């Protein structure tokens, strides 16, 4: 990208186009262009090759957040709650994470706390069977907090290493649904005070700047400890991750790159930056 050697108005406009089209969003794009323009005027950047290098470094800074690799050994059961808006890939990602830890010899329990959406429980049950892990569920329409409570209780009693709690998709703007998530979190804390140890927000790579609003509201409601971005196997670049990481400083743990249980990779900031262009 950016074929020319000299930096001029045309190059800066092309840069704007590249960043916007990668879904970095207006805010992050403006910040990056400001930084670049400043360095150009201070002669810290003198040609397009140097510009590209600095650009990648600046974006890398924005998304590589020092995260203590969440250590699932620090408590048993280690409780992970998955949240996010409708259809982003929460249930499928739980299946992938279950496989990931099952392969490491962990005793995994899935908790089907989406009791609302049609066949949500059946979907997670099918995945549990495919991966070869146990699942706790109640009937459709049951109180999600009650399911989460009983599930974590079971995990504690039966010595599971890690528990994944699947929740129903919901728009972050629906206050009563966000209250429901808060209740699930409170209820889990009653059995295991440090739980949930991780609350993962799942973001869809095809989402534009609404990802910022999603992260803000889910974080304000629950305290998000990690982000997983799915569907990076499509043509969307997922650039909004740059803006979200920069603004909220929440670590990005994994990316989803397909629909099968193996299609999960630990987040690699360098590879992500390279793929943006």
């Amino acid at each position, binding site marked *: 990208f950016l074929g020319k050697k000299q930096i001029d108005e045309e190059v800066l406009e092309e840069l704007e186009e590249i960043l916007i089209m990668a879904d970095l*969003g207006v805010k992050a794009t403006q910040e990056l262009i400001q930084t670049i323009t400043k360095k150009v005027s201070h002669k810290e950047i003198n040609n397009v090759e140097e510009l590209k290098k600095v650009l990648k470094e600046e974006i890398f800074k924005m998304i590589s957040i020092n995260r203590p690799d969440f250590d699932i050994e620090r408590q048993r059961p280690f409780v992970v709650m998955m949240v996010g808006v*409708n259809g982003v890939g929460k249930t499928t990602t739980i299946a992938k994470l279950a496989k990931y830890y099952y392969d490491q010899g962990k005793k995994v329990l899935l908790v089907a706390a989406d009791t609302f959406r049609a*066949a949500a429980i059946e*979907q997670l049950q099918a995945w549990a069977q495919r991966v070869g892990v146990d699942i706790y569920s109640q009937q459709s329409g049951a109180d999600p907090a009650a399911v989460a409570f009983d599930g974590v209780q079971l995990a504690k009693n039966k010595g599971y290493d890690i528990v994944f709690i699947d929740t129903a998709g919901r728009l972050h703007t629906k206050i009563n649904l966000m209250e429901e998530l808060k209740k699930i979190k409170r209820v889990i804390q009653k059995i295991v005070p440090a739980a949930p140890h991780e609350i993962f927000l799942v973001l*869809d790579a*095809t*989402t*534009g700047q609404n990802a910022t609003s999603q992260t803000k509201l889910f974080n304000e409601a629950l305290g998000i400890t990690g982000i997983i971005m799915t*569907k990076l196997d499509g043509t969307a670049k997922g650039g909004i991750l740059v803006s979200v990481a920069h603004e909220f400083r929440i670590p990005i743990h994994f990316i989803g790159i397909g629909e099968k249980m193996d299609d999960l990779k630990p987040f690699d900031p360098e590879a992500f930056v390279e793929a943006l262009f």
Partner: protein
Amino acid sequence: NLSDKLASVFKKLKGKGHLTEDDINKALKEVKLALLEADVNYKVVKDFLNRVKEKAVGQEVLKSLTPAQQVIKIVRDELVNLMGGTTPELNLKGKVPAVLMLVGLQGSGKTTTCAKLAKFLKSKRGRHPFLVPADVYRPAAIEQLQKLGEQIKVPVYHSSPEDNPVEICFQAVNEARQKGYDAVILDTAGRLHIDEKMMEELKQIKARVYPQEILLVADAMTGQDAVNVAKNFNKALDITGIILTKMEGDARGGAALSIKAVTQKPIKFIGVGEKLDALDVFHPDRIASRILG
């Protein structure tokens, strides 16, 4: 918001009789920002601004409007013009049963929207719809549509995950014809527009049952990628319309303009919730205001 920003752009231009090119350029900078913040595709924004500029330069400032209001009016009218057009009702004419096919990316809301359309056709259009689960890949996808069908008392074809989706659609249309159902709604699996094998499956379904409606179901919060998705689905299938889901959230919905601009196909409905009555007819003027912020 945009009105305030434009008002301040024009604050210094009192008493002018018409909008000059320089005034317009300043104003369009603000409009560009608003559209990009709304997730409208970058190239679509560029084309759109050129059209607005053509319409705006040299225009007489209407006595009843300030220059800022004038520009907003031109922008809004152009947006409504681009996204609206002919009345976007469903085309159910021709052979019986009418066949509607829903397609789109993973998780966009196809299965739920199939059920919403069935409910709409049954309770608001006096039809006898038949739901067809043609997603044999996603775990419990067939069960999902079956459960939704039960909720709205609409019959659902008996698909099994071992079946071939093309055969499912073909057999289901035949069964509908035999049983006297007059509208068949095909729920297809979510897929990437770059997955050739899966796009080929959709082409085969189309060739086998020749649907009256091929509706692209897209998520209102989609970003810049909306044009790639829409372009490819349209190229492969010549879609007949678009349904935007999850519109009751706070996504600005710029994808609506991007998709319309690149396919020239009508946006027929919007999904405004998870319940099966949460389907509205698309109103271009409402979404125009929302996109402009």
